[in-house]
Every structure is written in C-alpha cells, then in structure tokens.
C-alpha cells in the first residue's frame, strides 16, 4: 500500500509538471527543476517518515526505504532526461549532422567550436557560482578545496571505469 501511494504521488508529480508547470519560468533552469524534485523528495520522505514513526513496525521502515528509493529512481531518470534534452553537446552534434546539407562543410566544425566555447564559458561561470573555482589575486582562476575534492572523486570514478579520456 505505501508503494502504491508513492507511485500515485509520483504520477501526480510528473502529471503536474507536464500538464501545467513545464512552461513555467521558475522551472526553466537547472536549479528550478532540481528544487521541484528535491522538495517532492523531502515531502515524501517526511510524510512516510512520520507514518513509520506512528506505525512503528519493522516493516514500516522497510516501506519507507522502498518509497525513498523509488523517488530517487524517478527523480534521477527525470532529471537526466531533462538535462540531456536541454544541454547535451553530443546530441547537439547529432542534431546538427541530422539536418544534413552542410554536414561535410568546415562551417559545421566552426559552429561546433562556437558551441564548445560557449559551453566552456557557461560552465566556468557555474563552477564559480557553486564555489568549486575562485578568482586569485592576479585575476587567474584556481580551484577551491571543494574543487580539489571534486577532482579527486571524479578521477577515482574514472579510474574505476577505466576512462582515460574525458571532458
């Protein structure tokens, strides 16, 4: 029963987005759509957490874990697809090639390089905003301690999957 209630909630959550909120300016940014899912996850965890405390049986906590994981699977899949539809460089390349005609022209590479440069600039701004990169006194950019930690963790992941090329 808790799982069915959670499924109904997730259906309503997705339905609300696709029927009403997808054109909303508040959900047009990465931060906005992330908050839409984060608040929902907090509500589901809080609601079922209270139910588990009141109900009290061992099964209640197991059901709580089920609904939290189900929400995690739903939100991760939704956000991945949203981000790919919005911002994927590889998909941009596929779509540009798919438009045909100029696929062989050097202009295609020029356009892709422009996109690459724009992407670098926007990502650099984002890294500064979230505190992974800081501006040093001489105007150069350097990593913060959080940025260095992110690099170590990222390299550990790449080592696990044996990826030698990245970026």
């Amino acid at each position, binding site marked *: 029963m808790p799982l069915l209630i959670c499924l109904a909630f997730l259906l309503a959550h997705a339905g609300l987005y696709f029927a009403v909120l*997808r054109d909303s300016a508040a959900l047009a940014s990465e931060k906005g759509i992330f908050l839409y899912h984060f608040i929902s996850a907090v509500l589901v965890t809080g609601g079922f957490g209270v139910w588990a405390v009141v109900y009290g049986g061992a099964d209640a906590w197991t059901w709580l874990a089920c609904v939290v994981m189900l929400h995690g699977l739903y939100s991760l899949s939704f956000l991945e697809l949203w981000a790919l539809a919005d911002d994927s460089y590889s998909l941009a390349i596929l779509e540009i090639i*798919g438009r045909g005609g100029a696929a062989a022209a050097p202009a295609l590479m020029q356009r*892709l390089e422009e996109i690459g440069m724009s992407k670098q600039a926007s990502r650099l701004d984002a890294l500064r905003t979230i505190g992974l990169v800081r501006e040093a006194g001489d105007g150069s950019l350097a990593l913060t301690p959080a940025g260095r930690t992110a690099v170590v963790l990222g390299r550990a992941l790449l080592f696990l999957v044996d990826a030698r090329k990245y970026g």
Partner: protein
Amino acid sequence: MWLTLSAVAFMTSVVVHAVAVRLLKRAGAVAAFVAFGAGRGVALIGYCAVVYGLTPAVLAATLTYAFLCELYIFLFTLVGNSVSFGLLTKLARHPLKPADIARFYRAEAMIARRFEQLERGNLITAGPAGFGLTARGEGIVRVFSLLHAMFRRPNQWVSGMSCGGDDAS
C-alpha cells in the same frame, strides 16, 4: 539485513565492472555495467526471496540496489563527458587566466572526442560527403525530438540555428 545485501551486491558489481572493462577493451562502460549489474540484481532478488520470503525486504533490497546502480552510471557518465570536470582538471594542474583557458582546453579536442564516441557508438558514420547519421543515430535524434517536445526544452546549443544546407555557415 537487506541493506547490507544491497550494498555488497552493488560494490561487487562495481568491482566486477572495473575488471571487465579492462579485460574487454571494446565493451562500452555503460553497456558493460548494465549487463553485469542486471545479472547481479537478479541474483540479489533470488537470494533475498529465499532468505526473507515474499516480504517488503525483497522489494527494498531491489529498489536500493537499482538506485545505487543508476546513481553510479549517472556519476561516471557525468564525469566522463562533463565540460565542467574537464575545466576542473585543467585548473587542478595550475591556475589559469580566463583568456588562457581556451588555449589549454581547446574546443577542437572536445569535438574530436565526441565524434570519436559517436562513431564508436555507431551513431554517426564518416563518408565521402562528410558525416551522416546511422539508423541508430536517427533513432536517437527522433527519441530526443520527442523529449524536446515533452519537456518543451529545445537543445540550447542548437536552437536558433536555421535548418537547411547552409545552416552552419
């Protein structure tokens, strides 16, 4: 308990995958993880069903394992293809002025790597007339056309470009 079983199954999948991608050089990291992870997942469900019977614990173990696997795939694909991570690794070597970043992190290299990935994934093919989409690539573009419409999110790097033969000029 079931949480320990899920965690052990996940860590085993990560280790088996790490060995497999080194032995099977041509296997894609995502496809290999899905294959090994699915096998391990079926084993986990079977083992939990024997130990716990048909109880919520089996469902909880399965969902926890599935979530950990999806999160792992998300993280390694994110890091492996992330422009942000590429910039972070360049800055990890030494601080750079914004104007120097483009020199150290060239867009041509980013593009070349993506073309290589797309060709290896059988999504594009190089011919005398230039690059073209394979049937698989066309399928992916169609799927994402649907997703662009569903989310009302045109790819921000392509939107604004006009269609037709001279669109990239």
